[in-house]
């Protein structure tokens, strides 16, 4: 299986605070990787390093076999990296449909007429079709989360980065979202998913990575990881 993303000894500090400490892992194409860790463990920072919004102090990031450590975020987006944000950031004055249209055209460098069908398809898969012509500023939280996912999908990413997309949702809403992500994953999209809602994560991912103070303290099968003593102590706060 080919490796789509590879991090080698990636480090980043803000002053004395190490937010990424020699992080290394390989991600095979088509796999779903979950990332967990306490607040401030460096999860979102890791995403920023992968998408290029932050430059690492040391180390190397390879995407599709190419060194992208110093490549601009926009170029990585065009190369098929899609991302959703922890706090949804839709274009509030554009309609839901237009939000996706903008992402699909500019994120892939294609014409609007070529992407309209894809966008309609994404609207259906994310169950946003009913609100397609409403300004995104007026959406509910679940709809905003769906839009966040839809906008990342509209760029037809090879690698999809999801940042706490299930947070703040009810159980029913969460299950619906899991189904959408599962369907997306079975369609062949490689996913890295940061999530505090563990059952949502373990329902989809094949591998789990645990971060603490910027260090990788566990990487492997989700069940084994969740059972390991170190993770229980550090992440779940259980004295073993």
């Amino acid at each position, binding site marked *: 299986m080919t490796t789509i993303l590879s991090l080698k000894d990636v480090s980043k500090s803000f002053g004395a605070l190490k937010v990424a400490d020699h992080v290394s892992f390989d991600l095979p194409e088509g796999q779903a990787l979950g990332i967990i860790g306490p607040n401030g463990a460096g999860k979102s920072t890791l995403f920023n390093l992968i998408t290029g919004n932050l430059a690492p102090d040391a180390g190397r990031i390879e995407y599709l076999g190419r060194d992208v450590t110093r490549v601009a975020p*926009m170029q990585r987006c*065009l190369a098929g990296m899609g991302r959703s944000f922890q706090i949804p950031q839709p274009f509030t*004055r*554009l309609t839901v449909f237009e939000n996706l249209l903008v992402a699909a055209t500019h994120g892939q*460098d294609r*014409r609007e007429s070529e992407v309209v069908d894809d966008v309609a398809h994404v609207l259906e898969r994310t169950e946003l079709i009913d609100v397609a012509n409403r300004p995104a500023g007026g959406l509910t939280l679940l709809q905003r989360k769906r839009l966040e996912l839809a906008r990342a999908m509209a*760029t037809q990413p090879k690698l999809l980065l999801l940042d706490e997309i299930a947070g703040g949702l009810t159980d029913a809403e969460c299950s619906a979202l899991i189904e959408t992500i599962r369907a997306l994953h079975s369609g062949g999209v490689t996913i890295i998913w940061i999530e505090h809602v563990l059952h949502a994560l373990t329902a989809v991912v094949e591998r789990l990575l645990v971060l603490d103070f910027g260090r990788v303290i566990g990487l492997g099968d989700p069940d084994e990881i969740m059972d390991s003593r170190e993770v229980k102590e550090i992440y779940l706060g259980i004295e073993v």
Partner: protein
Amino acid sequence: MIWIETIVQGVLLGGLYALFAAGLSLVFGIMRLVNLAHGDLIVMGAYLILVVVSVSGLNPFFAALVAAPFMFTVGWILQRAVLNRTLGEDILPPLLVTFGLSVVIQNTLLEGFTADSQRLSMGPLETASVNVGPITMGTLPILTFGSAIVVILVLNWIFYRTAIGRAFRATSDDPVTASLMGIRPDRVFATAMGLALVVVTIAALYLGTRSNFDPYVGPARLIYAFEAVIIGGLGSLWGTLAGGIIIGVAQTLGAAINPEWQILAGHVAFLIVLLVRPRGLFPRAFD
């Protein structure tokens, strides 16, 4: 009847002010840039049309068609090379830089064309008129007003129906997220400035055919443009037209009472609107 004719003239004059204001409104709406050199860019456009007319002998309308792509390029380069660097959290740098640009344009025009006043000649069209019932309207003012409506329709179409328009709105909404979507804000802004200068060219055409101009008339046009934009409510092009009409009507009514009151009446109307509706007549729904 004379009053109705005066009001109609004022409405048509409002079309000219709306043309002055449309480019200013466009640029402010997309990149929150207050362009203090806007009036001088209009005057520069008028001189450019004048040059094309005197070199080629073309009618000013066709000369404006020749000038428009050139002005687009000027806008694009100006934005990429200078104005993009001034944009940011602080609103002062764009004000200072465009104020300086205003001085530079005025003095360059003075150097090249002297302080003599100029005019774009339209031949018999200048005095042509149309009778609608008992009311007589100048053909040129009607063309001006019609052009203002067409410009606003086209700009709205670009804004809401085209890919570049969506990029304008997305970037104006949130430039950082837009850049993550693959949009390049610096290019979007350059295109917007180019488009604004095409509108400026149309405004310049009617400025130059309606009255005399010299290198120093820019700032006064900027004031009318500002007033029209603010009366209309920031960000609404139809509101800008309404603002232009209010100033135009106030000016012609003022002039009908006493010719010395023309300019004053326009400014007084602006102040009254500002007192009654500080956010303008048609403020954007959510900002």
